[in-house]
């Protein structure tokens, strides 16, 4: 024997990436002994929740992803210091973080979303280098050396970005040698990636290997 579904039942699911908030309306189907036999979902509603903006990790101290990300995994004292110097913003898809050749203002930590790194010829022809994911620090090299940004970074998704001013970052690094070491490690990895790319671009064969003509075997 099946009872009628309870109309006031609401299942609420929360997506982990914080950008979506789903409300699901459904019903529980029970048998005569009140055991749940089936769950049906009759409607699913995506609701924008203004609270979510506040929920997108306003403070690095409470960030759930911190432990997984090498740059963000700092000591409690350092993370509090970093919290003070960073400026958090949520930017839309297609936003330009910085353009190649511009004077460095500071570095950007990508908290959520992806960004495209590309360089451009004098004629305006672009060459994409790679796609950066969450947890990466962008514009670090230029910020430290004071030279112009070497790449153009454009967001591929709606993303949350923490910006750190150049002077603040340099002071912060001087005070925290362990993070400075992590920055050096990160730059080394970037450099490795760049050399790989040089190898791929510079040493690949200019001409495609010719397709061998396969002659049908003489019967």
């Amino acid at each position, binding site marked *: 024997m099946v009872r009628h579904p309870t109309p006031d039942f609401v299942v609420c699911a929360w997506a982990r990436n914080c950008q979506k908030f789903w409300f699901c309306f459904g019903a529980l189907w029970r048998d005569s002994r009140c055991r749940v036999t089936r769950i049906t979902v009759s409607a699913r509603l995506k609701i924008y929740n203004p609270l979510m903006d506040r929920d997108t990790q306003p403070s690095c101290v409470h960030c759930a992803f911190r432990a997984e990300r090498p740059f963000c995994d700092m000591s409690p004292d350092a993370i509090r210091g970093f919290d003070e110097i960073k400026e958090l913003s949520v930017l839309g898809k297609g936003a330009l973080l910085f353009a190649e050749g511009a004077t460095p203002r500071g570095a950007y930590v990508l908290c959520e979303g992806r960004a495209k790194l590309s*360089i*451009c*010829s*004098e*004629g305006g*022809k672009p*060459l994409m*280098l790679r796609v950066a994911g969450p947890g990466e620090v962008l514009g*670090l*090299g*230029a910020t*430290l*050396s004071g*030279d112009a940004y*070497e*790449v153009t970074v454009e967001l591929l998704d709606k993303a949350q970005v923490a910006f750190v001013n150049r002077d603040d970052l*340099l002071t912060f*690094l*001087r*005070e*925290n*040698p*362990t993070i*400075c*070491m992590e*920055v*050096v*490690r990160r*730059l*080394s*990895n*970037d*450099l*490795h990636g*760049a*050399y*790989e*790319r*040089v*190898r791929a*671009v*510079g*040493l690949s064969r200019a001409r495609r290997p010719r397709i061998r003509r396969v002659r049908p075997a003489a019967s």
Partner: protein
Amino acid sequence: MLSPYGLDIVESCLTCKLRSEQIFCDLPEAALQSFEQIKYATAYPKGAILFVEGQAPRGIFVLCKGRVKLSICSTDGKTLILKIAEAGEVLGLSASVSGKPYELTAETIDPCQINFVKRDDFLRFLKEHADACLRVAEQLSEKYNAACREIRSLGLSHSAAEKLAKLLLEWTVKNGEGAKQEPRIKLALTHEEIAQMIGTSRETVTRLFAELKKRQIIQAKGSTLVIRNKSALKALATA
């Protein structure tokens, strides 16, 4: 007394006169003293190989005097010269920090004085001295910048002529003659090496030089190259 390879070897970094000009070496007193304890001053002849790409990192090489050719090699033996490193540069830095194999091959083109520091010692030194760590970060950023320039030049240029014109213009800026109407460059590399720098063949470079001379864009005076028509060269570079 004449030292090996005619080099005037500087034994101590503390008394080195070149120090203030170099980015890496201009360290505070305390850092310099501990660097002094972990470094080995060595002299290399011309043509010596400091490290080969793919080798596990042993440590860093601080180039005090002389020049070093940095190149990468494809599996079929094609070579691409990335840079000619000059005094004050630190070689093998990123590999030593990250622990990944050396990504380049370094070969001396002059007799060189090099200060070698073992990897473990260097990492300990960086942990203890935040200033040195920042200097290293600066050096790495510069190298990254140069690598990006290289990618741009190799990946986005259409022809070998364009790449050669870019290289010549880059050299004029480097020699401090960028503002002059008729800049001069001292050619320190062979056509073969220039070909390896722009990723083409020796024959193409020779042909291009002959063509530039014929069009009176450049003029050779011994090993010195005079750029007679800078605007034409610029037009070639941005074609």
